[in-house]
Structures are given as structure tokens and as C-alpha cells.
């Protein structure tokens, strides 16, 4: 049976077929996955918005107003960050939501964006951090362990929050933790980047943008908005389809950046769950990145289970287990086993201490 939320994400014109009880179930689930404003944008693009029930339209407009505010806020943050980093004289590449907004990608319409993520060359990251701190961004109060954890093992600075606006900028020097099994070369990403419509920022090349999003979702363990992230991947593939260089170069680029496996999962699950059109040659080419059969079969079960918010109130045991397995896997992938064991033990001890306090 097809999941109703996936069905309308894949074919927005079918939104007109839903009755009010079906809309009720859909609204609950779309709220839980931050996809209400995306449904609104899809309904408008498909030309069916005006045919939806009035009370449904009211809720979609409510979400649209909020998403529009997010975009306005993100544009203002980019303006402030540009000012703060004016003297840096190094490439500053926008990542994730801010990049989709700056690039004007169609799926950014209705996407909620709360933080700005930027990538700077590793040797300039301290300078970028100093500049942001001079302009009002502050480190959240992390304990010394977390500070050290970020600085030694992570691919980004601890989050910097602006003292007045309370908005967060994440400054990355690469797109996966340096300890990760996969080692995409950040210099290659920056070298292929191109000017963003919002000066002085840059954007990843289309293939790199897709590969980064795939690595983030399928390798980095952030499953909080997993379905939204899959919708991003779908949106990128549909948007970049118009760029004649995109599909032909994708497989080679994935190999070059060491991101073949995440690309395989992205193509497989976007096609399966959201009916994303992918040229047959690319599907065939990505087979080289497929996991060995027993693991592939397991991931085919785990990934959809973790991606799909189930329709009723409680999380089922199966879905919680799938998320836990993938969470553990993502840590396994980002750290060598000894470091992972030390980190998880430390985190467990801190949780224990916090409960006792």
C-alpha cells in the first residue's frame, strides 16, 4: 500500500482527490515532518490549490506565511554574515537550506530554514570564527567536553548563535567529520563552487550539492527531518535535470568525492518513495556503489521505516528500532570504533549524571 503522504509528494495533482478525513491525517503527518508549506507550494505549482477545501487552504496559507518569514529571515542573516565576513578574502560556500534559498531552487518554496550553514577552507576557519564573534555571534554554552569534541573530531565549529537575533550559523570546513569512513575532499568542493546570486557567497556545483545532501541524510545520522531531506534530494534532481552537464557527470563526481554509497541510497530511495525521475544510465552506473546484498536488503527495510513518520500517535517499536540502528550506524560511519566507544560511553555517563542532578 502506498503511503498517502508520499503519494501526494510524488503527484501533487492527486491532492484534489482527498476528502476532509484524508486531509486531516495528511495535515497531522505533514506537521510532524515540517512539510505543510511544501504541500502548499506543490498544490500551487500543480494548479490545484484553489480547488482544495477552504479549511485546508487556510492551514496551508498559515504554513506558507511562516515559511515566507523563514526565507526573509535567512536572507537577512546572509546579509549580516556577508558583512561580518567582508574582510575574510576567502571563498564562503552556502550549504543546505540557505543555499537552496539563495539559489532560488523551486523546492526551497515552502521549505523551513532556521540556520545558515557555510563552508570555508579549513585554514581560514579560525579567522571566520573570530570575525563572526566580533560581530555578535557567540558560542552556545557547551561543556568543555563538547567543545573539544567539536573542535577535534567534527567537520564544523560548535554552533554560533547571534546574541540579539538568536539565529545560528554553522561554520564547516568539510562536509563530513574528518574521522568519517568517507573522505570527500573539501578543496575539490570549493574549487568546483560557483558564485551565488547573493554576493559574496558561493554555491556548490549541482552534483556536489546533491552529493552533500545525500551524505548528510544517508551517512551523517541526522534523521530528525529525514523525509524533508529526501524531499530536498528529489527537488534537486528535478531542478538540475535542466542542466545538461548534471546527470552525465554525476557518477564520476560521486567516485571522485568518495560519496558513491550515499548517492546510491539517494537515487534508490528517492525513486522508490517519491518517484523521482532518474535516467536509466545513471541508475545503472550507481549500481557500482550498491552495498553487498545482505546489507542492501537490510537497508531497504530500515531506511523507509526511519524516513516515514507513521500515521498514529505513538512511534512503533519497529520504527524506533530502525532509527536507533541507523543512528548507531551513522556514528559507526563517522568515527573509528575506539573513538566511537569512548564517545558513546562519555555521552551515556553524562546523560546519567544529568538525570541524577
Amino acid at each position, binding site marked *: 500500500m502506498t503511503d498517502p503522504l508520499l503519494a501526494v509528494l510524488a503527484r501533487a495533482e492527486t491532492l484534489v482527490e482527498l*476528502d*476532509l*478525513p484524508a*486531509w*486531516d491525517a495528511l*495535515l*497531522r503527518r505533514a*506537521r*510532524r515532518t515540517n512539510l505543510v508549506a511544501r504541500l502548499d507550494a506543490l498544490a500551487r505549482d500543480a494548479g490545484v490549490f484553489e480547488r482544495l*477545501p477552504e*479549511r*485546508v487552504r*487556510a*492551514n496551508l*496559507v*498559515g*504554513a506558507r*506565511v*511562516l515559511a*515566507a*518569514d523563514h526565507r*526573509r529571515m535567512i536572507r537577512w542573516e546572509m546579509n549580516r554574515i556577508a558583512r561580518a565576513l567582508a574582510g575574510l578574502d576567502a571563498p564562503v560556500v552556502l550549504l543546505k537550506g540557505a543555499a537552496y534559498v539563495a539559489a532560488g531552487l523551486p523546492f526551497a518554496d515552502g521549505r523551513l530554514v532556521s540556520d545558515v550553514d557555510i563552508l570555508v577552507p579549513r585554514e581560514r576557519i579560525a579567522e571566520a570564527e573570530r570575525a563572526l564573534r566580533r560581530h555578535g555571534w557567540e558560542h552556545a554554552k557547551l561543556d568543555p567536553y563538547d567543545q573539544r569534541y567539536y573542535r577535534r573530531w567534527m567537520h564544523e565549529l560548535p554552533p554560533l548563535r547571534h546574541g540579539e537575533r538568536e539565529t545560528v550559523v554553522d561554520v564547516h570546513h568539510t562536509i563530513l567529520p574528518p574521522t568519517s569512513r568517507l573522505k570527500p575532499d573539501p578543496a575539490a568542493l570549493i574549487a568546483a563552487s560557483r558564485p551565488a546570486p547573493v554576493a559574496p557567497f558561493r554555491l556548490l556545483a549541482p552534483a556536489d550539492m546533491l552529493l552533500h545532501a545525500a551524505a548528510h541524510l544517508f551517512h551523517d545520522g541526522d534523521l530528525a527531518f529525514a523525509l524533508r531531506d529526501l524531499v530536498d534530494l528529489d527537488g534537486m534532481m528535478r531542478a538540475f535535470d535542466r542542466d545538461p552537464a548534471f546527470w552525465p557527470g554525476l557518477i564520476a563526481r560521486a567516485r571522485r568525492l568518495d560519496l558513491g554509497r550515499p548517492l546510491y541510497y539517494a537515487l534508490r530511495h528517492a525513486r522508490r518513495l517519491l518517484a523521482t525521475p532518474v535516467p536509466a544510465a545513471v541508475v545503472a552506473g550507481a549500481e557500482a556503489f550498491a552495498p553487498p546484498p545482505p546489507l542492501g536488503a537490510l537497508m531497504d527495510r530500515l531506511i523507509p521505516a526511519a524516513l516515514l513518520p507513521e500515521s*498514529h*500517535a*505513538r512511534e512503533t517499536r519497529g520504527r524506533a528500532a530502525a532509527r536507533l540502528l541507523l543512528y548507531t550506524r551513522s556514528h559507526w560511519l563517522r568515527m573509528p570504533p575506539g573513538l566511537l566507544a569512548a564517545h558513546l560511553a562519555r555521552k551515556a555517563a553524562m546523560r546519567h549524571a544529568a538525570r541524577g542532578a
Partner: protein
Amino acid sequence: MTEARATVGALSRETLARRLAGDGIAVRTGPFVTRLRLPLDELAASLRLLYADFPVDSSGFADFDVTARRLGRGKIEFLIDGERRFAPVARGIALPMLEWAINWCLYTFSHQYLLIHAAVVERKGRALVMTGRPGAGKSTLCAALVGRGWRLFSDEFAVISPDDGRLWPIARPIALKNDSIERIRRLVAGAVLGPTSDDTHKGRVAHMRAPAASVRRADEPARAGWIVFPNRADDGVAALAPVPGGRAFFRLADNAFNYHFHGAAGFEAVCRMIDACDCLDLGYADLEDAVAALDRLVDGEAR
């Protein structure tokens, strides 16, 4: 199509409790329908008392979806759309927490409206919008005015269509705090108050039921006629003093939940509203005196 008016109060005690403990019951309050799943006897009883006149919606579609869940050790939690959004609370404050959770849904999701933190009542077809600092007495004034026959819109939200400036009623119960509970009991003959909850973060809270006439007309919007900024003092006769439009603008925007979300449309909606209203400071010490001053204001306008 007209159907028999199904209200919360028309359900038997047993049916209401059974449905609240099962698939839930959808209650229509003005433009919003809230599905409630409340498997707690005391909440069923409070709902039956405070929401008796509200229509039960049978469309199958709810704007808000609120579930209460027992956790043991005297704690409960509320889920929104099936998802945990708030910390658990003591069961003793279940009713104020329920009201607060519904308010949370409104200002978290309903940005199709411009939402201002204000008490709104209506007389002679014009809405009176009262906003100000917490403790300025807007809920108490709102309850007192409703007791004098004004139509209740809301003690908490001015719900405004940004495109045409109309205000929409909700007519949910009025939350009275601390001393206001006794003052309203004394002042408003026949006021129906729900149970008093002690130890909420605002102290003691009790809810006053909206008059049946307000609930029946909860689908009738109105335009704002007066914007009043109440200010309670220790002594002095109630006095209304004009507030310049520019100052009124900033006070309204300051008290809005989502003014900035609406960008230029929000700016224009607030400007139009101020242009169409008398904007007044209300200094008062005595509640009855303040109510009389507001009555005179509206009567004077009608002449």
C-alpha cells in the same frame, strides 16, 4: 444544508467521556476546529461545563489535534498532532494546560491570520480590542464587559484577516487569574466558572464560560472600532485619553504574535486597523468604573 445543532452539552456525560477517551471529539470555536482526546474524567467534566454550547464538528477535519496522556506519578502530558511538544505537568493543572495547549496551536500554526495578544469584545457591531502588558487587567475587563452583555470574541487573541481587516471570534472560556476570580464572581451575576487550578505558573486560574449568545454567533466577524490600552492604578477615576496613531501602531505590533511574519501585508493591516479606530489609554482603579467608562464610550459613539 441545516443539521440539528450538535453541541458538546447535547452529548450525555457517558458519551462525551467515552468519545474523549477514544477517537476524540472535534469542537468548533469560531474559525478553528480542535480535536480533543482527553481520557481524564475531570477534563471531560470541565469540557462539559465550559464548552457546553460549542458545536461538535463532524467533518472529519481538525485544525488542531490535542491529546492528553496519563504518565503516572500524578503527571500528564499533552501531544500536538500526536507529537510531544511540552514538558509533562501535574494533573492538577490539566485544564489550564489544555487551554494553553490550544492557544499554543493557534499561535504556532494559524499565520493565515494576523494574531495579536489582546482581549476582544463586541457591541453594536464594532469590536473593542484591549491589549497591554500582562497584569494590565485585560482578561478581567473582558470578563466584566461580557457580564454586561458585550459579545465575547476572545480574552487572548485578536484574530485578524490581513486582507480585509475583519476580526474573528473564538469565544473560548476566559482565563481569570488570582484576585480576578473573586472580583468577577462578585461583579457578574450568573457567571459560570470552572474549577480553580492552583499552582500554575501564573498562580491560581479559573475559567469563565462564554455566554451562549457569544458562542452561537462565533461565526460572525466584526471590524474593530476601538483599540484600548488598559492600565490599572491604585486609585483614580477611570479616564480615557487618546493615543497618537504612531504610538498605538508600535504597541499593537509589539503585542502581536506574528506581526513580522506578514511583512508588508502585516504593516498595512495594522495601519488600516488604527485608521479605522479610536485609540485610547484607559487608566482605572475600579473595575466597575472602567466598565462604565467603556460602555459610555460606545454609547457616545452611537449618538
